[in-house]
């Protein structure tokens, strides 16, 4: 893909398709340990994002800012503010640069993680999206010397592993934390959706 605004828009269109395709899986995961609305909420959010992409802006940062405000307004629950914050901070980090570079993508991912942690106050091991995003940022940083596609691939691989690793964890944040020990044995839906989005971005970039 190109690394300008058009490339980012294309990556978001594939992300919306992935969210649509995995709606039921996310609903099922969330039903196990949450309130079962994550898949539907995220699908509603990305459907709204699709309708905004045509005139979203002419820099990657401008496009991601539109994504942020759309998700904040449409996703609801904790995922709306959290994903909204992630895209908002990434957009702010990218500023008005016309094209993504490997290092700006690393910085944007790191800013997104920082925003999510500040907003949700979750740490690694709490069984949240932070468990996918934290290793993703570390892996992206290790790949910073390569290309945008390589950075995103490394991030997606690490996020996928991070999401898998949430299965045995007992949740300490969010709705699942009310279940205590019973939250163990299920993958965290937020970590899963984070891994899915990063995979979609990586696939679009390669």
């Amino acid at each position, binding site marked *: 893909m190109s690394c300008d605004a058009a490339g980012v828009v294309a990556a978001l269109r594939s992300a919306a398709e992935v969210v649509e395709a995995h709606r039921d899986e996310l609903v099922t995961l969330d039903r196990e340990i949450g309130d079962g609305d994550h898949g539907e909420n995220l699908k509603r959010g990305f459907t709204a994002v699709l309708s905004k992409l045509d005139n979203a802006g002419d820099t990657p940062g401008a496009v991601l800012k539109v994504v942020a405000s759309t998700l*904040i*307004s449409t996703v*609801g*629950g*904790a995922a*709306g*503010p*959290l994903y*909204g*914050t992630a895209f908002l901070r990434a957009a702010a980090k990218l500023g008005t640069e016309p094209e993504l570079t490997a290092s700006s993508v690393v910085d944007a991912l790191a800013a997104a993680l920082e925003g999510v942690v500040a*907003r*949700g106050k979750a740490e690694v091991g709490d069984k949240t999206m932070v468990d996918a995003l934290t290793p993703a940022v570390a892996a992206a940083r290790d790949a910073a010397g390569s290309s945008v596609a390589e950075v995103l691939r490394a991030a997606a691989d690490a996020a996928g592993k991070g999401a898998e690793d949430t299965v045995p964890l007992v949740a300490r944040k*969010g*709705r699942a934390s009310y279940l205590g020990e019973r939250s163990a044995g299920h993958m965290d839906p937020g970590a899963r959706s984070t891994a899915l989005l990063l995979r979609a971005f990586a696939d679009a970039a390669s």
Partner: protein
Amino acid sequence: MIGLVLVSHSAKLAEGLAELAGQMAPDVRILPAGGLLDGTLGTDFDAVSAALDRADAGDGVVLLYDLGSAKMTADLAVEMLGDPSRAAVVDAPFVEGAVAAAVAAQGGGDLDAVLTAAVSAGAPDEVVDAGTGTDFVLTNDIGLHARPAALLARTVAELDAKVTVRFGDKQADAASVLALMSLGARGGDTVAVSATGPDAAEALRRVHDLVARGFDE
């Protein structure tokens, strides 16, 4: 005057609390922002942002929240405002904090004063020196119930005095509506009011007038 936004997962909860707090602070803009547009439970960012705008009379807004993601939505709405001096989210008991914040705002408190009032609504009362004291017999029917308690709190809020009300073995800081209400003093009961500070005498005089007027009932 500081405005309030009550962010809740439930529209009914936010509206009910706005009604309760509003009764004690008739001039304060108290905006409920609860539930989703379709009537289900959740917090709606756009609704919170709109409430934040409407609650601001120019002096700033304090946002209170019920639980979980309501705090995130409130935080995000403040962050998107881009001016941290205009609004703040307070970590306080939702009901007690909102009532205390409303009374502090009604008394002309600034952003910091309203935040402090909300936070301290959840803290235990400190024991204070007796100071100058007088006994009063409550002549109104309902005693120190919500409206009279709010009236008393507002009356002393303007003064530089620490006023304590005792009833039986319980005591309350007269600046706290909830503490006053929790005394459970009814019409005909005798309460002991004491005050310390530069305006102590004026505080007691005003309490005397208020009790003599039967809290304007």
